[in-house]
C-alpha cells in the first residue's frame, strides 16, 4: 500500500515536472501581445456593444456569441439534477424491497 502511494507520488511529480517545463514555454503571463489576445478577443471587446447591445462583454459572450455552450451548461445542470434525483429518490417500498 505504502509503496503504491509512493509510486503514484513519483509519477505525479514526474508529470508535474513535465508540465512545468511546458509552463515555462507558454507565452509570458499578462502580456498584451500574447496569442490569446487576437482578433477574436478584439472583436469581443470592441464590437460587443454594437453586436449585442450588452455592456458587460463576458455576458455578451455567455449569452450571445457562445449561447450554445450556455445552453449545454444548463443541460449539464439539468442532467445533474436528474441524476441526483434518480440516485436518491427511491420510494419506501423499493427501499425495503432491495
Amino acid at each position, binding site marked *: 500500500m505504502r509503496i503504491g*502511494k509512493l509510486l*503514484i*507520488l513519483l509519477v*505525479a*511529480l514526474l*508529470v*508535474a515536472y513535465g*508540465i*512545468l*517545463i511546458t*509552463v*515555462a*514555454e*507558454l507565452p*509570458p*503571463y*499578462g*502580456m*498584451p501581445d*500574447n496569442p*490569446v*489576445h487576437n482578433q*477574436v*478577443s478584439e472583436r*469581443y*471587446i470592441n464590437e*460587443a*456593444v454594437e453586436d449585442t447591445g450588452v*455592456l*458587460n*462583454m*463576458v455576458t*455578451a*459572450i*455567455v449569452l450571445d456569441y*457562445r449561447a450554445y*455552450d*450556455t445552453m*449545454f*451548461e444548463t443541460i*449539464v*445542470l439539468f*442532467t*445533474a*439534477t436528474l*441524476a*441526483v434525483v434518480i*440516485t*436518491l429518490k427511491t420510494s419506501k417500498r423499493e427501499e425495503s424491497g432491495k
Partner: protein
Amino acid sequence: MRILLEKLMANYPYFAAVVLFTIGALTVMTRSNLFKKLIGINIMESGIFLMFVAAGNIRGGAVPILDEANTKSVYINPLPSALMLTGIVVSVSVTAFALALIVRLYKSYGTTDAHRIAEMRNEVSER
C-alpha cells in the same frame, strides 16, 4: 535551469495552477475517503480554471465591462472568463451528483471509505 526558473517566475499563475492540479490529482489517487476524492477533483478543476483565467489576463488591463468609470484603455480578454463560468457550473454539477452518490453509498454501507465498501461488497457477494 536558471532560464527555466526565471520563466516559471514570470508565469507564476500557471505554476500555481500546475501545483493545484498535482495536489488534486494526488488526492484523488491516494485517498480512499470518498469525500477526499471529490475534494481532490475540485482542486484539480480549480487548477485548470486558474490556468484559463490567467491566460486571459493582461497586466494593467481593465475588467471587460464598458463603463464611464472605467478609465483604462486596455481591457482583458473576456473569453476565458466566460468559458470558466461554464466550467464552474459543470464542476458544481459533478460535485452535486457525486455527493448524492456518497449519500446513497453511506445509506447502504454505513461508511464513506472506498476500501471498506469494497470489502463489504465482496463479503456480500461471497455469501
